[in-house]
């Protein structure tokens, strides 16, 4: 596999393989659904297989700018200074692996769920994959923006054509919300661009006089030179773009609609990957480029995150629809991610990044599971179910693992992420951690209550007596996710190792004095401490369980 260290454009291959697959699929007859499904699965599988070696060839110890690896640079629009620039650090690598894996699972899980216009469906799914991977790879703002917007279109169609009852409303809402945020972000990008080059004479903003460029890494170097006031406004632009995508508390209203109306695979991709693009945007762009802006807006964002955590959890508690419940739980979980990030210390950020992956895996799994019963019963109302544990034991077990992972039970992935976040947040301000802990307790409450209503009790609805347990294909989509939950829950060290350098880099950018004040902490210690405190938290959850 000399490909991965010899300058071969492996990231481009991974990015554009789904696109090429989508184009080839145009030539398959649309009646031949079998061939379409097989072909799409093969493309997604090859893409995943190609992305896995990245994990092994990635140099975890590279620090500073060298941590951006597998670099590809070519000129694209020289007259604007736009480069075709790809490169990933540990954070992007994990997200790309998540994307390729979830992409494969999404394709594979749609075999029976999608019963009309299959060809278009798989083409759009593959196009979406190209857009998402491109977002994580791009190191040029222009290129990033292009991928960011490109991915809107296939998602719009996925929700709009194969969605539920109110699919048109949900699709347009999703599209417009995200677009509105991202066009404002474009203005922030432009402001950065002009600050780096010619300046904005009219506003008395002197430029640095560099050659016009959209190079993200260059912006990383010059960002702190921007006056705090301008940083505030630029950050606000980024904040709108990313916060809508995350989504943070007041901007979250598109999410329940989109999640609920989207087809199962669409919800899985939305939850697992698309939401991460917002948080990824913060850690890759907003934080390191605009340290002053970050600190000025830290308190409002932390406040919104805490509101999001508690609000999301409370709203989940009262949901009657399973999918909606999982959707609102995303608001709560993403609040955790944002809270950890804005603790602005290595521990909080590590937990935040890891929690992005965890949420992708757990919530993705929950959506898949909800999709399985929905496909058979065509309802997602919790009241329609009950006692499924007897009828579908395998399903009940998988659901339990996913739910426990989502609520943060020790020995599963959610715990590691949430606990690391709590440590980091407590380091910054103990009261934030207290509020966040309330969110964890509520999270346990709504998930366990859901589990109780759906799986326990008498199996009295006759319609449920004919439900079939998970079949082999469904099991195949779920097992890798369960494996990941357990892997991260038991041995998170490789993951922490992967994100250590990027996180230190970001903290160094945001708070240059941090490492002088604080002794450097290592992720392995965090994991040990996490294990030590696990029993205490398990006790709390047992309490709630009762």
């Amino acid at each position: 596999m000399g490909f991965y260290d010899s300058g071969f454009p492996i990231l481009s291959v991974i990015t554009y393989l789904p696109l090429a697959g989508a184009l080839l699929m145009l030539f398959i007859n649309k009646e031949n659904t079998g061939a379409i499904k097989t072909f799409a699965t093969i493309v997604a599988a090859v893409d995943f297989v190609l992305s896995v070696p990245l994990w092994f060839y990635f140099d975890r110890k590279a620090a500073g700018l060298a941590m951006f690896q597998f670099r590809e640079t070519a000129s694209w629009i020289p007259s604007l200074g736009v480069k075709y620039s790809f490169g990933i650090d540990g954070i992007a690598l994990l997200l790309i692996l998540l994307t390729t894996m979830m992409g494969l699972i999404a394709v594979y899980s749609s075999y029976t769920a999608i019963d009309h216009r299959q060809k278009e469906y798989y083409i759009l799914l593959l196009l979406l994959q190209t857009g998402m991977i491109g977002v994580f790879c791009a190191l040029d703002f222009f290129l990033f923006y292009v991928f960011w917007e490109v991915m809107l279109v296939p998602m719009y169609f996925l929700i709009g054509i194969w969605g539920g009852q109110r699919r048109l409303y949900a699709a347009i809402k999703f599209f417009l919300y995200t677009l509105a945020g991202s066009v404002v972000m474009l203005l922030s990008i432009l402001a950065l661009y002009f600050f780096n080059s010619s300046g904005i004479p009219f506003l008395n903003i002197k430029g640095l006089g560099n050659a016009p460029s959209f190079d993200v890494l260059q912006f990383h170097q010059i960002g702190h030179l921007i006056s705090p006031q301008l940083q505030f406004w630029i950050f606000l632009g980024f904040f709108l773009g990313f916060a809508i995508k995350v989504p943070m508390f007041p901007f979250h209203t598109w999410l329940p609609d989109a999640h609920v109306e989207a087809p199962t695979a669409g919800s899985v991709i939305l939850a697992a990957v698309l939401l991460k693009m917002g948080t990824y945007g913060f850690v890759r762009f907003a934080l390191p480029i605009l340290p002053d802006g970050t600190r000025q807006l830290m308190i409002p964002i932390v406040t919104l995150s805490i509101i999001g955590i508690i609000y999301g959890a409370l709203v989940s508690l009262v949901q009657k629809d399973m999918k909606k419940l999982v959707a609102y739980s995303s608001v709560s979980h993403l609040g955790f991610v944002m809270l950890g990030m804005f603790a602005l210390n290595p521990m909080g950020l590590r937990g935040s990044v890891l929690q992005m992956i965890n949420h992708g895996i757990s919530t993705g799994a929950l959506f898949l599971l909800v999709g399985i019963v929905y496909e058979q019963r065509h309802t997602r109302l919790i009241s329609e179910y009950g006692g499924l544990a007897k009828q579908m034991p395998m399903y009940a077990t998988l659901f339990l693992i996913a739910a426990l992972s989502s609520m943060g039970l020790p020995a599963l992935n959610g715990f590691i992420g949430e606990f690391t976040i709590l440590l980091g947040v407590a380091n910054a301000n103990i009261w934030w951690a207290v509020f966040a802990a309330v969110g964890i307790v509520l999270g346990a409450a709504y998930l366990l209550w859901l589990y109780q209503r759906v799986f326990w009790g008498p199996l009295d609805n006759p319609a449920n007596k004919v439900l079939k347990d998970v079949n082999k294909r469904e099991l195949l989509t779920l097992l890798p996710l369960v494996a990941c939950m357990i892997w991260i829950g038991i041995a998170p060290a490789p993951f922490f190792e992967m994100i250590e350098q990027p996180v230190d880099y970001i903290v160094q950018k945001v708070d240059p004095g941090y490492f002088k004040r604080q002794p450097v902490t290592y992720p392995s210690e965090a994991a040990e401490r996490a294990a030590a405190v696990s029993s205490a938290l398990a006790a709390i959850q047992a309490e709630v369980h009762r």
Partner: protein
Amino acid sequence: MTWADTLLLLPELIAATGASILLIVPVLGGRARGHMAKWAMLALMAVTALAVIGSTYAVAGVQQTPTFRAMFAVDAFSVFFKLLFVVVIALVTLLSEDFLSEERYSTWEYYSLLAFALCGMMFMASGVSLITIYIGLELLALSSYILAGYYKNHEESTEAAMKYFILGTVSSAILLYGISLIYGVCGSMRLSTIAAALSTMLSNDALMFGIMLLAAGLCFKIAAVPFHVWTPDVYVGAPTPISAFLSTGSKAAAFAVFARVFYVAFPAFHLDWSNVLAAIAALSMIVGNLAAITQTNVKRMLAYSSISHAGYSLLGIIAMNEMGLRGILIYTMVYVFANLGIWATILMLRRHAYAGESVEDFRGLHKRAPFAAFSMVVFLLSLGGIPPTAGFIGKYFLFAAAVQAGFGWLAIVAVVMSAVSMFYYLRLVVAMYLEEGSGAETIYSPSLRFVTALSLTVTLVVGFIPELPIRQVIESSSHLVGRVVQR
């Protein structure tokens, strides 16, 4: 004035001669052979295009070469627009084929008027004196009035032509009054002389009023708020190919004039007029987009969308910097092709009237005409400025120009409104892809197919490989930007 000078006029001479020949043909017995008119017109366009390209070799370079006593100039800027006009007219010719054969109107005169319009547009692009620009604009306008009323048997068309004519004449008078005030103050109608006169003045109310009247007249042509009221009625009433022409070629010519006049003649007074134009631009974007949302008639929707696009393009004038001028050029090109593609699709649909009118006509189009539906999505995304279509590149330039010029608030209005615009563009996408049901019949003639394919190619190529067009635009506009006073 030498023979070489006359050669510079060759494209215009060819267009005018060709137009006159087209007029004579039916008298010589060509009436019966109406279908030949299309080919004659296309041949004329090809020869004109060759002459335009040839005229650049005659001046050997891109520098401005005013000739005929500084009334007329052939430079890279004018060549860019003239080629664009020729292509637009050629595509409108292709769009008109079915309309003329189905409605049985006299074809030769129709094409002749189109060629005269082209002639006027070319004089507008090449005019470096206000009088040449004015008379070129009038030639275009008069041809457009007649063409807009070509549907003589339809009351709507006659009404539209009447409305267009009366409002157009009033706006021409306003424009002319502005020109006369400017002439009075500066003592010349040459753009360069005006610029020189302005640079020695501190402030002059009469001149400012003249500039405002001039801007108002031009805003009518580009359909900017509050001079936009004619647009929806005319686009709906006029024969559909002519609506396509009015929303693309006619506007592009007005923008060529807008850009040249303001960039060459008035940069010294930029601070004074930019805020007024900024208000007009903001109003156009807001009113155009919000009004478009409520429309159910596609032509009306396109009319309001065209009003909003006039607002976006104005950003390039207001910014008064390199980026802005390039933005106007590239955005005009991008907008023209996306719009022509959309009109081609509308022409393809048949229901009650001649062409697709209501959003419902687009229902389920992806089944009946997958290529047209797909192209339509690309065009709509391009109008909405979603990458990787050409529209994004165009909007990028305009927004960047506004940010660079310090018009941050205007840029915010522009981006928010371009997000809003996706709302009604998506309604068509919804109808085509997400709704089932019976839409209008489709008749997809080879000509329409060709227009769609060409527009699609341009829209995607400019979106994916923007370097080449951008470089062309820089080359075509750099000599005008040299005069901009950089503050």
